[in-house]
């Protein structure tokens, strides 16, 4: 019986069907490859895995039970596998088709299987491990079927096929190496154990395996590649993309002659067929050789690839890609993945009642090639294993996020093109928030606080909201804002808005930040600022002397403890940033002997210790000292606030709290000197000090407000978090405590912080940034993460992967959206009150905590007037 695939395959072949089963040639074989059976011993049934070439040059992968091979042929198999292939081309009986696997009879030969290489979709490679020495490969076919797992029992081999003295090659690796000579094998960057065979472009993109076939300069001819059965056209397609064949890695070009030699030896003469085959194989090995761009692009994208030895030549064991560890995070992720794969294989082993043992679980679907999912079967066993396996889910969630990100990007590109198209015809705008369509559905069955609102309307209207992000403020623009006395000609609100929208070019940060961090009054002249710098320096050094020159303070136990605490943290703050990296000074702090220090680290310590002195003073004391040092005091914002507002700050009296060093480092680095670094830090702490209050009330209220925001803007996410017992939002704690310092790279932190400094839309804009990041990942969280710990892990691991610009854009859109909801609710309540005279029962009030977030808008609009 022929398999459908095989028939289709045959129809496509140029040569007559009748020649198909004439004396296939054995190109590669490996003995002691086991397949599980229902009747055999625990080990399963031993057999040979082989690569076979039919007389019409079709390549077939087959597995034949030992017991099913006729005596004569068996010798061929054994010879080839033990002697190497250089001088032997053997002819064997035609292999069986996958049909046999499902026949239900238990005759050994019924387990034999063979498939054309062109029908292979992917391989799942489980290399041998210390505990499980055999290792296995599962082969997935284009049609969605999978072959049974092949277990490579290398223990049974008396000697490896490698060069004398070299360690034996794992059979699976060997098979991969040989396969690679015949078809294109691409490692998935996302699933390093997964290898795609003659993958389509889409699959390559999905797997992050930047296709070797599509260098940036050549447009993909996917039409050609989408016909995997047409070997010639595949080869041709590749060749046209790689005109410069001479540059191809030698392994590829040597390979074909090596095979030809074998052909010649075996047949004694060069036949026409031999010539034809040589041509076709040469093309194949060129186009499929890792040298032909495959390896190159793989290393560029960080995706693994198999380095391939020459065709049929014995080589020392080539390291499998996952053995090249890159960094700890990647490692962790990889370990998790192996855990999952291991689990799959375990399950597959004990529920082998079908040839395909791929399990139907939501998360399974993420890991398997899409078409395989069709074949996925219910398995309670699998669910049991997977259900409480949190790290697997976290891993899969991450994987899903990368895929989603990719499609998100593509979607945005399409949108952008659409927008351009429309705008060229004079209409249209685009929304930064692309997920509004999804939201409409989310609201339909939710009883959100919006109650009877027509949310559909709201959603439709909200899609029209856009962000206003633009370029950073340039030095030229900045200097043009000042009159000849050096006083700002434009309004403070205007500057705030500009900085909110685009940030500041780095060169002028040192100056602009001083306005935002309350060092310079907005209406100061240049002369006043010069005077202020002097008085600020004086004031700072006076504060510093209070501990620096006073041995009694220094001997104080509490001071010592603070000092130790600060030293511990300073020495582990931003040490990768060159400003703090060097170890040019000895380290005098007790705790880190052996680790050097540098001037900037020492200054960080001094600033933090001095800040303790400053924070311990009551505002009136500060104002007094401020008065003393700067006689002609300007209407300094902080001083005004200090004298007028409540003098009590008992919360902060306890000094340094972890996280402060994270906040100080960037402002100090931007200011570049101790005095201004200190005052900039004071200014920043004015905005963030509530985060460090002993009773944590500042963090608590922010998290509560964020929670309310989620409830209003994304009821479905809210419900999910509720279900996960994650409404405390502790997974956002680090974000808010230190303003995302650990989540973004250094340069991004400066860009983010100046937006937060601006207070343009909201004085709590960090909450909208947090909301934007959650929003970006909300689908993943809802679909994949099922507990507080999983969400925490996922969110923690987002660190250094978040796109800042996108987050800021989305944060602004979310702000507008919230504003819109507030307006809607107010209007609705107003109408209801007017019509019924009764204060709206149906529409609850917009949460006051959220309304406060929106206040800044009105303030700044007022100020602008």
């Amino acid at each position, binding site marked *: 019986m022929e398999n459908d695939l095989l028939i289709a395959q045959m129809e496509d072949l140029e040569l007559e069907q009748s020649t198909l089963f004439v004396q296939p040639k054995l190109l590669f074989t490996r003995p002691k490859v086991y397949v599980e059976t229902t009747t055999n011993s625990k080990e399963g049934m031993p057999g040979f895995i082989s690569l076979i070439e039919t007389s019409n040059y079709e390549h077939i992968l087959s597995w034949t039970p030992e017991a099913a091979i006729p005596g004569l042929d068996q010798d061929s198999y054994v010879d080839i596998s033990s002697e190497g292939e250089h001088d032997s081309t053997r002819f064997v009986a035609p292999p069986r088709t996958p049909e046999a696997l499902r026949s239900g009879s238990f005759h050994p030969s019924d387990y034999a299987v063979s498939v054309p290489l062109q029908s292979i979709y992917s391989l799942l490679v489980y290399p041998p491990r210390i505990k499980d020495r055999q290792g296995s490969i599962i082969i997935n076919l284009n049609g969605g079927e999978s072959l049974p797992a092949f277990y490579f029992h290398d223990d049974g081999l008396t000697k490896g096929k490698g060069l004398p003295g070299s360690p034996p090659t794992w059979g699976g690796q060997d098979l991969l190496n040989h396969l690679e000579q015949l078809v294109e094998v691409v490692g998935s960057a996302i699933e390093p154990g997964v290898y795609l065979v003659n993958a389509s472009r889409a699959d390559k993109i999905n797997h992050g395996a930047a296709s070797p076939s599509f260098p940036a300069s050549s447009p993909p001819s996917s039409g050609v590649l989408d016909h995997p059965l047409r070997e010639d056209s595949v080869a041709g397609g590749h060749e046209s993309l790689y005109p410069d064949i001479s540059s191809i890695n030698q392994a590829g070009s040597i390979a074909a002659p090596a095979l030809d030699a074998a052909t010649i030896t075996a047949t004694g003469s060069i036949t026409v067929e031999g010539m034809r085959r040589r041509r076709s194989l040469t093309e194949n090995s060129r186009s499929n050789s890792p040298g032909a761009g495959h390896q190159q692009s793989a290393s560029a994208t960080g995706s693994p690839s198999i380095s391939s030895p020459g065709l049929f030549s014995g080589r020392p064991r080539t390291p499998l890609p996952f053995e090249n560890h890159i960094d700890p995070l990647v490692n962790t992720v990889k370990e998790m993945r192996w855990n999952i794969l291991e689990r799959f294989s375990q399950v597959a082993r004990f529920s082998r009642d079908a040839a395909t043992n791929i399990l139907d679980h939501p998360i399974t679907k993420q890991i398997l090639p899409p078409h395989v999912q069709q074949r996925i079967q219910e398995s309670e066993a699998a669910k049991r294993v997977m259900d409480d396996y949190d790290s697997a889910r976290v891993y899969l969630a991450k994987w899903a996020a990368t895929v989603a990100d990719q499609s998100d990007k593509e979607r945005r590109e399409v949108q952008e093109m659409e927008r351009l198209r429309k705008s060229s015809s004079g209409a249209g705008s685009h929304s930064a928030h692309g997920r509004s369509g999804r939201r409409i559905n989310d609201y339909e069955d939710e009883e959100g*606080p919006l109650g009877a609102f027509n949310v559909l309307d709201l959603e439709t209207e909200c899609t029209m909201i856009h962000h206003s992000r633009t370029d950073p403020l340039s030095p030229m623009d900045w200097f043009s804002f000042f009159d000849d006395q050096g006083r700002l000609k434009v309004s403070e609100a205007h500057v705030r808005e500009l900085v909110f929208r685009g940030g500041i070019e780095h060169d002028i940060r040192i100056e602009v930040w001083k306005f935002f961090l309350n060092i310079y009054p907005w209406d100061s002249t240049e002369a006043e600022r010069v005077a202020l710098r002097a008085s600020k320096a004086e004031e700072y050094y006076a504060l510093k002397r209070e501990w620096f020159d006073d041995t009694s303070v220094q001997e104080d136990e509490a001071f010592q403890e603070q000092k130790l*605490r600060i030293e511990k943290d300073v020495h582990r703050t931003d040490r990768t940033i060159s400003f703090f990296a060097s170890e040019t000074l000895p380290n005098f702090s007790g705790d880190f002997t052996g680790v050097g220090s540098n001037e900037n680290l020492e200054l960080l310590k001094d600033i933090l210790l001095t800040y303790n002195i400053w924070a311990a003073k009551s505002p009136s004391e500060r104002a007094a000292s401020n008065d003393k040092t700067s006689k002609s005091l300007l209407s300094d914002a902080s001083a005004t606030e200090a004298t007028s507002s409540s003098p009590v700050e008992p919360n902060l009296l306890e000094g340094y*709290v972890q996280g402060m060093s994270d906040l100080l480092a960037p402002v100090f680095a931007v200011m570049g000197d101790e005095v201004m670094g200190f005052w900039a830090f004071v200014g920043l702490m004015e905005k963030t000090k509530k985060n460090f209050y002993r009773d*944590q009330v500042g963090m608590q209220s922010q998290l*509560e407000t964020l929670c309310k925001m989620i409830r209003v803007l994304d009821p479905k996410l809210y419900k999910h978090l509720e279900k996960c017992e994650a409404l*405390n939002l502790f997974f956002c704690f680090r974000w808010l405590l230190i303003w995302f310092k*650990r989540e973004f790279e250094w340069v991004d932190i400066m860009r983010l912080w100046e937006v937060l400094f601006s207070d343009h839309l909201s004085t709590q804009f960090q909450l909208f940034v947090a909301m934007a990041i959650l929003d970006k990942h909300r689908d993943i969280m809802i679909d994949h993460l099922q507990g507080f710990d999983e969400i925490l892990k996922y969110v923690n691991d987002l660190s250094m992967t978040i796109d800042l610009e996108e987050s800021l854009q989305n944060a602004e859109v979310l702000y507008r959206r919230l504003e819109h909801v507030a307006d809607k609710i107010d209007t609705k309540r107003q109408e209801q009150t007017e019509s019924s005279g009764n204060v709206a029962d149906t529409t609850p009030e917009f949460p006051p905590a959220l309304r406060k977030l929106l206040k800044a808008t009105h303030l700044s609009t007022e100020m602008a007037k």
Partner: protein
Amino acid sequence: MASRKKVLLKVIILGESGVGKTSLMNQYVNKKFSNQYKATIGADFLTKEVLVDDRLVTMQIWDTAGQERFQSLGVAFYRGADCCVLVYDVNNAKSFETLESWRDEFLIQASPRGPENFPFVVIGNKIDMEESKRMISQKRAMAWCQSKGNIPYFETSAKEAINVEQAFQTIAKNALQQEVEVEIDFPDPIKIDSDTSKDFGCAC
């Protein structure tokens, strides 16, 4: 059946800031050391699969912020813990002296069933430093551990990977024992929500 269920052991590492909690966790799970781990903010965890008495279990090891200021977050992080690791720095007397309060605070916040039998393990870290810096003798630490119901005690160096494996083996073992006891006590996974403390969170 309880034994067929996948076992997840939740382990919480507590102790003063800078005693090496993150380093111990990373040394154990990733076999790596760096003296520049940033101060932990909030909490994080790593998982590791281990064999304990021929049983494959997953350890979920929670690394927490060391400053007592952040202890109020503990409620969320400590819940369901199977073992608590108290870490101090043998060269820092204060970090030893605060062990007691870390232990008490843990018992209050995690409110485990049978607090008197809850498994703790004490680790004295940084034994790689020169002997002259040492502030807490082994004898003193062991005496304290004994007085607290024979808490197992280990002296380790996360930096040089001394004794880390052994300490975590014991941690895993004791955690598993705790987990098994809990399973026996409560064969049905009934959720008790009444005591979910709401220091933080959304009351909207």
